[in-house]
């Protein structure tokens, strides 16, 4: 187990360096003068421009600029906006909203998705199974931003169960609707994944053994079959975090929530390049860390990986 953890940790280092380098190259190594962009249509004052260039290391060679950027990232400095505000400042203010939204959504998709999948697998071919299958197809095909708008109209406006937008009511009232919307697509995928993997493991030899041992049905399904079916689901949940964060950008916009995603969408719109880079770097690092955690969890669930 220990060796597996170490190996997995070592593997992540080149990926972090690679992905930050790509982000850096895409943004900073591109033609175009960000200082001029800052000034907009007017001509930038040459003196001020020179000072700014110096401040942002824009005159140094590329590798030095990358070094400034990467060493900043690892000391918690994600850079600053062109008007001098620290990006980590923005993050600490906005991150809690995204975190609450993300975790709520994660819980919703895992719980409902897994339950629906189990139900579907146990009632395979019956009415309930078909209901779940149709529901998942619908959820997968309706884009998050459409579903968000429709839910706003139905639950916020017409039925007045939840706030329409914003976070004034706090957790959970203001978060539950966006979380469900954000979770919808992944929830559907999880339900289908659980359905197919549980169906497969129910047919497995070791489940027949468990029945032959005289175990009660709940233990046969809940422990022997489920434990194996969860392995692909955990893998999916890990990969899905990336989609979840991408979705958060959209969901926060639909529901007008002041989180990282909303900020990111706004910064893209306003062309605040450093903010975009800082926030994207942060999200990508979170994604990598989460994937690492999932891999470790995978090893806990599947001893065959652990002792490889």
């Amino acid at each position, binding site marked *: 187990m220990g060796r597996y953890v170490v190996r997995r940790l070592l593997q992540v280092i080149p990926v972090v360096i690679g992905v930050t380098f790509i982000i850096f190259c895409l943004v900073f190594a591109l033609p175009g003068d960000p200082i001029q962009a800052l000034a907009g249509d007017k001509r930038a004052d040459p003196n001020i421009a020179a000072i700014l260039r110096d401040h942002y290391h824009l005159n140094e060679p590329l590798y030095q600029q990358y070094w400034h950027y990467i060493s900043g990232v690892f000391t918690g400095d994600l850079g600053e906006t062109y008007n001098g505000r620290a990006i980590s400042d923005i993050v600490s203010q906005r991150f809690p909203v995204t975190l609450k939204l993300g975790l709520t959504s994660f819980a919703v998709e895992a719980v409902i998705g897994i339950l629906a999948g189990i139900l579907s697998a146990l009632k395979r071919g019956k009415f309930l199974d078909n209901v779940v299958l149709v529901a998942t197809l619908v959820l997968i095909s309706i884009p998050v931003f459409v579903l968000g708008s429709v839910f706003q109209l139905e639950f916020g406006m017409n039925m007045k169960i939840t706030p329409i937008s914003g976070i004034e009511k706090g957790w959970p009232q203001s978060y539950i609707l966006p979380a469900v919307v954000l979770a919808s697509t992944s929830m559907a995928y999880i339900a289908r994944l659980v359905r197919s993997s549980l169906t497969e493991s129910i047919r497995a030899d*070791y489940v027949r053994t468990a029945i032959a041992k005289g175990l009660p049905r709940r233990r046969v399904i809940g422990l022997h079959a489920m434990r194996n079916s969860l392995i692909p689901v955990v893998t999916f949940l890990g990969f899905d975090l990336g989609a979840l964060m991408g979705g958060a950008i959209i969901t926060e916009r639909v529901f007008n929530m002041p989180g990282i995603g909303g900020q990111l969408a706004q910064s893209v719109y306003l062309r605040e390049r450093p903010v975009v880079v800082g926030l994207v770097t942060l999200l990508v690092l979170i994604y990598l860390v989460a994937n690492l955690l999932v891999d470790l969890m995978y090893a806990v669930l599947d001893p065959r990986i652990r002792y490889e």
Partner: protein
Amino acid sequence: MTIIDPTDAIPAPRSGDAEKTGPLLEVRDLHVEFQTREGLVKAVNGVNYSVDSGETLAVLGESGSGKSVTAQAIMGILDMPPARIPQGEILFHGRDMLKMSGEERRKLRGARIAMIFQDALSSLNPVLSVGYQLGEMFRVHQGLSRKEAKVKAIELMDRVKIPAAAARVNDYPHQFSGGMRQRIMIAMALALEPDLIIADEPTTALDVTVQAQVMDLLAELQREYQMGLILITHDLGVVADVADKIAVMYAGRIVETAPVHELYKRPAHPYTRGLLDSIPRLDQKGQDLYAIKGLPPNLLKVPSGCAFNPRCEKAQDICRTELPPLVPVTERDGTELPGRASACHFWKETIHG
């Protein structure tokens, strides 16, 4: 989880001869069929056999002969549907298990009747330690705590001669060799000292050198605990040393029964003879090995009359039209041969001719 005392479930005593109600297990006229997309598959068509405490019955047959399906019906682990048991009785200590409730049968499974499967690697749960899977028997059936169950699990692993049992109790199935895994399966079946063990091709997946060890272990434990043993196999070589009697199955029926050594000496059914002749023998070195011609029957279209007739060298017209019943086999002078029966119109010619 409710704690169950397994002795509650069954009225008959374990091995007492005082109030003996017949054999330990008796299968009477058992039929099993499967509803498939292609049609109704009649996998078992009126099987009768019985096993006593301390006795070993070998059930012999090719794949598709219904030997495993019969065993699964006894265990109550058939998937129903698609499987169906339209008629028959399975008497365990004199009580028909087919009439018991699901819960009653569950309490018997593992505790009083246990099963050993062919492929231990796929039959053991890959993500649970062997100690957990062994201990589970005690925790579910006897309500022991996790700790007590682990002690019992180590004892069991010692019992089936797994070296360094205490150190390996937390290992997972894939960390053991094939032979060791099969020992764990045996230990699991043995855990609650059942009255009857069904071993479904327990050595087929193993190396030849390990096969004998595992078979010997099984036989030794069976003698020690005086259990009934049903040994399902397609390998006549495995059977000879271990079994007391043999039932040969073909196309869902028993075609011959006999005490083990008599069967080898004088088979009373052409199919059995064919099986025996296809065993390689040292004294026939250089000669061509005999093989039964043709393929096992398609269970969707079992040939009329005797199911073996298309492959039988001695088949006559009657074999194609009339189903031969299982009749007692006698000596030429009519002396009864105990335990012997054959389902062949020409059993006399086969055994005496």
